[in-house]
Structures are given as structure tokens and as C-alpha cells.
């Protein structure tokens, strides 16, 4: 099978759409109650989901809180910093 120009374009497009993720990192300052509240309030997670993700941050050191385009993830990182959480973004497959 040879690479047609169409299939090259498709893979380029796929690379551009490659999802990014927003990661929230554990920090020694923020209260677990506050982090869970931020997750509920900003991301709209329900109580249980917010608790799970907050505990993941706390126990694993980090948790993915969103996936999507790079721009969307940048907005989420900005929002997290507004709340005083420590967040970064990275390619999903990084």
C-alpha cells in the first residue's frame, strides 16, 4: 500500500487534532476540600467524581481533569491558576 496525498493529509489533520490534557498537580498547600470544590464548581463534576479526582491528585501526585484542544486546555490551566491550583497542559499521548 502506498501513501496517497489524501492519506498524508488525513494523518496531518489527525496530528493537529491530537488531544491535549490538563493536569492538576498535588501541592502541599491546597486543602483537599478546596480542590474538590474547585473541581465541582469549575468542571461541573458531581460530588463523587470530584472526590475521586481530588484523591487521585493527592495520592498519585497528579490527575487529568480535562481533555481537548490545546487552546481549551490552556483556558483550563488559566482557570486553575486563578483558583491557586497548580496545573499544566501536555499532549495526551506524551
Amino acid at each position: 500500500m502506498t501513501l496517497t496525498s489524501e492519506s498524508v493529509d488525513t494523518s496531518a489533520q489527525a496530528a493537529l487534532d491530537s488531544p491535549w490534557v490538563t493536569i492538576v498537580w498535588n501541592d502541599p498547600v491546597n486543602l483537599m476540600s478546596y480542590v474538590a470544590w474547585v473541581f465541582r464548581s469549575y468542571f461541573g463534576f458531581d460530588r463523587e467524581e470530584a472526590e475521586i479526582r481530588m484523591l487521585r491528585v493527592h495520592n498519585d501526585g497528579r490527575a487529568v481533569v480535562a481533555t481537548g484542544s490545546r487552546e481549551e486546555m490552556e483556558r483550563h490551566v488559566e482557570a486553575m491558576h486563578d483558583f491557586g491550583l497548580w496545573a499544566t497542559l501536555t499532549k495526551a499521548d506524551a
Partner: protein
Amino acid sequence: MRAFEPAGDGAVSALFEPVEAALLAQLASQVAGLLAEQRGGAAADLAILRLLPDAYPDDPAASAEFRRFTADELTEKKLRNARILIADCAGAADADGPSTIRLDAASIGAWLRSLTDVRLVLATRLGITEDGGLRPDDDDEESLMLTDVYDWLGFVQDCLVSALED
């Protein structure tokens, strides 16, 4: 202080001693000063770096660009939150005895963020880098006092979050 309680219409309120309200205002003011000073700069202060962290952990160029586009607005928001907290504390700080501070939705948002900013700055100064605490060699009086303040701020914030759960 006595813990925050719902006060109707999405507001909360709590009783504060004058010294407590004054302390909150003073701390927020110090953080505001720090933020105002670094505007347009390169986040050289460790505390500022924690308030405005790098967005791309492995890409300094992308982080720098992100900072260029977002730091000013974030800084202004943080300054605004500090101003709101300071204004909310003014009456109670000057009162003769404990008085109620009532926070509407806007103030609640400002207080949560501003309390966090103050705690982040204090933690940087105290060298709190691990869950659970203080650098072992920091038992001088100032550090111990700052630690007490830091713990108290955590209590205040936790109370506020709890009041929002209802």
C-alpha cells in the same frame, strides 16, 4: 472567628475579632503588593512563580508565551480579589469587638482565591514543599508565628468551603 454559616441568598457570614479581620486585610495587602511589583516581569520571585506557574512543564518557550499572554490578566484578577477581601474586612477590623462579615457570591469567590494566594505565598516563605510541613530548622519565632497564621488561614478557608457545601 466563629465558622462561616449560610446567610441567605447564597451568602455566608462569620463573626470576626477585629485583630483577625485586620490580619486578613494586612496579609492580602502584602500579597497584592508583591503581585503589583512583579507586573510585566519574568516571575523571578518563587512565590510569584507559584501564583503564576509555568503551563508547559517541558517547554520553556511555550511557557514563556503562555505567561506573556495570561500573566497580566491573572495578576489583575488576583489584585481585584485581594481588594475585595480587604474592603470586606475593613469594618470588622476597626470595630470595638467581634463583628459579622457577610460575604455575597462575589466576595465568596474573591475570598477563596485570595486566601489561597496568601497561603501559597506564606508557604513559599516558610519553605513548605511537602505535604505536612515546615522545614525542620525553622523554629525561630517568626517562622513559628507565620506557621500559626498559615494554619489559621487554612481553617478559615476550610470553614468557608464547608459553608458552601450546604
